[in-house]
């Protein structure tokens, strides 16, 4: 039986303290705190047998600069034998190729998929749908309607949430990475209404993210939100909690998940 997945999310940003890449956490896509080194952190997650790791360069598309990801992913892939998804500022087929050649298994696109939806089709045609993850960042407006934002939460798009997810699947995306900007870093729980809307509309897997603060939030995301996988940054990064604890709680709730004895 296919298992639900737990995915630590490593947010990367240019360090305030010199020219290197730092691992950070964020709250509502702002308030970034530098907390360490992405490669050593990824190795810890490997030792904890997480199901996959997600790396996102969070200001690449905001700054419009070249991404830093290629080096990092290469270093990680040298040492980790598990699925790696990478994104942030990916804007072309060449970016896809560079990341895949350096050890990424899946590449997520967001801002540049909205700017040019044809990029999804092109990438899926060349590398296969299974490599193409459509990342969607959603936020409620004052009337409670979900809006899609790009450029790391700086620009509203006017796209309809469900329609964009369905269009993404039709264009060839193999997975959706759905993040609630409102809940990001708050530890108040996932936005299960948001997740369910998308999970019920598409037939590709949905990875939900934004808001996990308790192990029970993962259980809710799988049951109420119908997520296929859950990605968490703040929750895992601060080490108060770890993937093994979440795993056993998810298992106890009767949800299929990998268990290590």
């Amino acid at each position: 039986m296919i298992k639900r997945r737990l995915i630590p999310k490593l947010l990367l940003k240019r360090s305030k303290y010199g020219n290197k890449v730092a691992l950070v956490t964020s709250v509502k896509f702002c308030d970034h705190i530098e907390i360490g080194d992405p490669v050593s952190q990824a190795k810890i997650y490997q030792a904890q047998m997480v199901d996959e790791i997600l790396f996102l360069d969070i200001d690449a598309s905001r700054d419009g600069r070249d991404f830093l990801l290629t080096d990092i992913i290469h270093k990680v892939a040298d040492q980790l034998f598990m699925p790696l998804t990478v994104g942030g500022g990916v804007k072309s087929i060449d970016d896809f190729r560079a990341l895949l050649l350096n050890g990424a298994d899946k590449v997520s696109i967001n801002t540049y998929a909205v700017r040019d939806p044809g990029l999804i089709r092109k990438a899926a045609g060349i590398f296969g749908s299974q490599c193409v993850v459509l990342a969607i960042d959603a936020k409620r407006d004052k009337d409670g309607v979900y809006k899609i934002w790009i450029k790391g939460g700086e620009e509203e798009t006017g796209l309809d949430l469900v329609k964009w997810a369905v269009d993404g699947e039709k264009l060839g995306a193999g997975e959706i990475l759905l993040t609630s900007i409102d809940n990001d870093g708050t530890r108040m729980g996932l936005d299960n209404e948001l997740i369910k809307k998308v999970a019920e509309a598409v037939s590709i897997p949905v990875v939900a993210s934004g808001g996990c603060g308790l192990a029970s939030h993962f259980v809710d995301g799988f049951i109420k939100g119908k997520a296929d996988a859950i990605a968490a940054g703040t929750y895992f990064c601060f080490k108060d909690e770890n993937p093994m604890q979440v795993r056993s709680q998810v298992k106890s709730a009767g949800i299929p998940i990998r268990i290590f004895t």
Partner: protein
Amino acid sequence: MTVGIIDYGMGNLLSVKNALEILGAEVSVCTQPQDIYRVDKIVLPGVGAFTDCMSNLHSKGFVEALNENVMKGAKPILGICLGMQVMARKGDENGGCPGLGWFDAEVVRLTPQDSSLRIPHIGWNNIAFNLNSPLFGGLPESPDVYFVHSYYMKCGSADNVDATFDYSGIFTAAVRKNNIMGTQFHPEKSQDIGLKILDNFLRWNP
């Protein structure tokens, strides 16, 4: 012993190479058909579409070299994911395309009976394997391995199927025939279990 990884412009070579090197193998990336004649074992990786994969193998001249080394020379080969699928007689994707034809099999779209199950089949699923298979020696029962695919290899002969997975229906997870092996899942991405499977391939003397 040298293991050659076929580089035909598709697939995540780096992870396969790193995994084999960690296990102590000498790895040579084969970018030209003649490189294959110099290695002892072969790994054929692959992601993407069946048709593109076959047309790349043809245009780079790999098909003839693979046939000579694998079918005539009996060199052990491991196909991974699409690298396994192209060993079939034919692929159904995009209107159909002939494969290498090493297995009496067709590559068709996954069709779980429960239509709410998602395609692609992405993530960790457990496999049931043939206890006599050299690829799975020393593994725990029903291990979880990492899959990411939308098509699977439908074999004409059950004798060729070394492992299966359940996705509301039983589908091929691994195949074997003489000196040829293939896995639908990614051993290079399946943590300790995957490394053990690759190690078994390195030790295999068909």
